[in-house]
């Protein structure tokens, strides 16, 4: 479904402070996969996720979404692609502080034709499913770190995405809540074939994933399929 070929991302190219955040990354992600990406801080996990989800454009190389090269697509086409197919949980919470949890969850659908009632219903359901049914009208500042992260999870799912990119989705959670978030993702993965690509520092999550990609210095150093996925 999403494929990248010889992806490179370079910051400050040609200057002494040049950073090669990604070098020659090639990868194929199929529908319904469940992938964990690990690697030391600065190894390029976030950068890879941004490029795969068409949030950012590579310095060189290609990203293909549903076999179509994204490099020729307009900004609008990429935005619509994100809106219709993809979900994103950002590193850090990236919630809008002045609006409530439910409004944050509803954000992706506001410019769409989906009617207000339906958006609300969906948002409530998602917040309930991440255990925040009692925190609908709280603003991010009134929520704990873990609760904020779960709001972000709910938001990434509001548009029924085919693939969700999760950047440190459990970084702020204790291991128990962290696992419950992973379980939620796994359930969705099983029932709706939603694909997940998750970047994390938490090595213990590797066992829950069907595929594990390890990065170092902007390159993929390991790409393993795990046939013995740990249950809950």
């Amino acid at each position, binding site marked *: 479904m999403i494929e990248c070929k010889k992806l490179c991302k370079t910051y400050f190219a040609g200057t002494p402070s040049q950073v090669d955040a990604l070098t020659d990354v090639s990868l194929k992600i199929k529908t319904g996969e469940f992938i964990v990406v690990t690697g030391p801080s600065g190894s390029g996990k976030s950068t890879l996720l*941004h490029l795969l989800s068409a*949030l*950012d454009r590579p310095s060189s190389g290609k990203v293909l979404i549903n076999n179509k090269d994204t490099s020729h697509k307009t*900004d*609008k086409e990429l*935005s*619509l*692609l*994100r*809106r*219709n197919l*993809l979900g*994103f949980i*950002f590193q850090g919470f*990236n*919630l*809008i502080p*002045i*609006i409530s949890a439910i*409004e944050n969850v509803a*954000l*992706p659908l*506001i*410019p769409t034709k989906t009617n*207000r009632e339906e958006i609300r219903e969906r948002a409530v359901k998602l917040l309930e499913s991440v255990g925040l049914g009692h925190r609908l009208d709280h603003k991010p500042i009134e929520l704990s770190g873990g609760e904020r992260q779960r709001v972000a999870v709910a*938001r990434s799912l509001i*548009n029924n995405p085919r693939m969700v990119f999760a950047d440190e989705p459990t970084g702020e959670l204790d291991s128990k809540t962290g696992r419950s978030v992973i379980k939620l993702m796994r359930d969705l993965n099983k029932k709706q074939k939603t694909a997940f690509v998750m970047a994390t520092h938490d090595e213990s999550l590797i066992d829950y994933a069907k595929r594990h990609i390890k990065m170092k210095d902007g390159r993929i150093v390991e790409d393993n399929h795990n046939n013995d996925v740990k249950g809950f």
Partner: protein
Amino acid sequence: MIKFSVRNLLKRKTRSLLTLSGIVIGVAMIIALVSVSEGLTMLATEFVGNFQGIFVLQKDVPDDIFSRINLEDAEAIEEMSGVKKASGQIIGIVRGLEGAETEIGLESLTAGYFIGVGPEDEELLASTYNAEVDKGRFLTDNDKYGVVIGSGIADSYNKNVGDKIIFNDIKWRVVGVFNEGAGFMEQGIAIPLERAQEINGFEDDIVTMLSVMPENPDEIDEVVKHIDLRYPHLDAYTAQELGETAGDFLGTIRTAFWLISIVAGIVGGIGVANTMITSVYERTKEIGILRAVGWTQRNIVVLILTEGLVLSIIGGIIGIFLGSAVANAIAGVTGFVVYVSFELVTQAFTFALTVGLIGGLYPAIKAAQMDPVTALRYE
């Protein structure tokens, strides 16, 4: 989307109020200034429309107030061919009407000037100012302190025939009230010529101006020419010319007021744009998030512009009401006639919308062009 932008505005109250007040002040300024100048223009038009006849003033005086004419000239002019009648009057300023404080500077335009006339001037007032006695009677030789007041004054001070009225430290008695639609005389008071001379400290035979009625209105220009020729120390105008001069003057005021409004508008517009730009910078991260979750650049532009438009519409409406209130207050204090026309309201509202749109457009485009990843990393 509209609901979302309204929520955004409500959540950022201080910013919204700042922007809003910029628009409100701009619109209110336009309404207040222009309505006053339009009111004055209307007054001037009425003035021109109602005046007939000829005015004679002393030549080369810096202001009409300094004009001094001997009544002998009136008699002589009346003898000229083509002249039906010539009489002298004194125009003066009413001070302390019913104990009111009149402010220097504004008073000449406010409710408050008197015209010293003789009993024989009734016809003249009717033909020149369109002022006819509606209630009571005109002045007679027996009226020492009798006055005929304009309907405007009668209304404002609730005076009627037989009432006492005080101004210029003298107690007068109202003997008549002029009709409504007496133009200039609506806010004027006719007093006996002798009293006017006393108030102004003039000799018995001195007046400020002469009013001349031609035998035949079609020959008015010739009569003016004759007077100018024969009496080099005098200056004759048709009322028409006088009205036009006033009209020119008001035209200048109008232009000045419009210019002030435009400047106010530009300043307001820049203020609005400025608050909106700051607000967009403050929201860099938020816009990055929206872009990341699939909002198109266009969605962002629409969002920011909607916010700007909502503020303009609200600001425009408040501004129109505030401006009208201010205009009415000005009218109340100074006695100016103000006129808030539908056109003016439309123009002011268009101004508000333009400010909101232009003020919002630049930040909106700026916001939409931000790179989402950079915006997300922005702290």
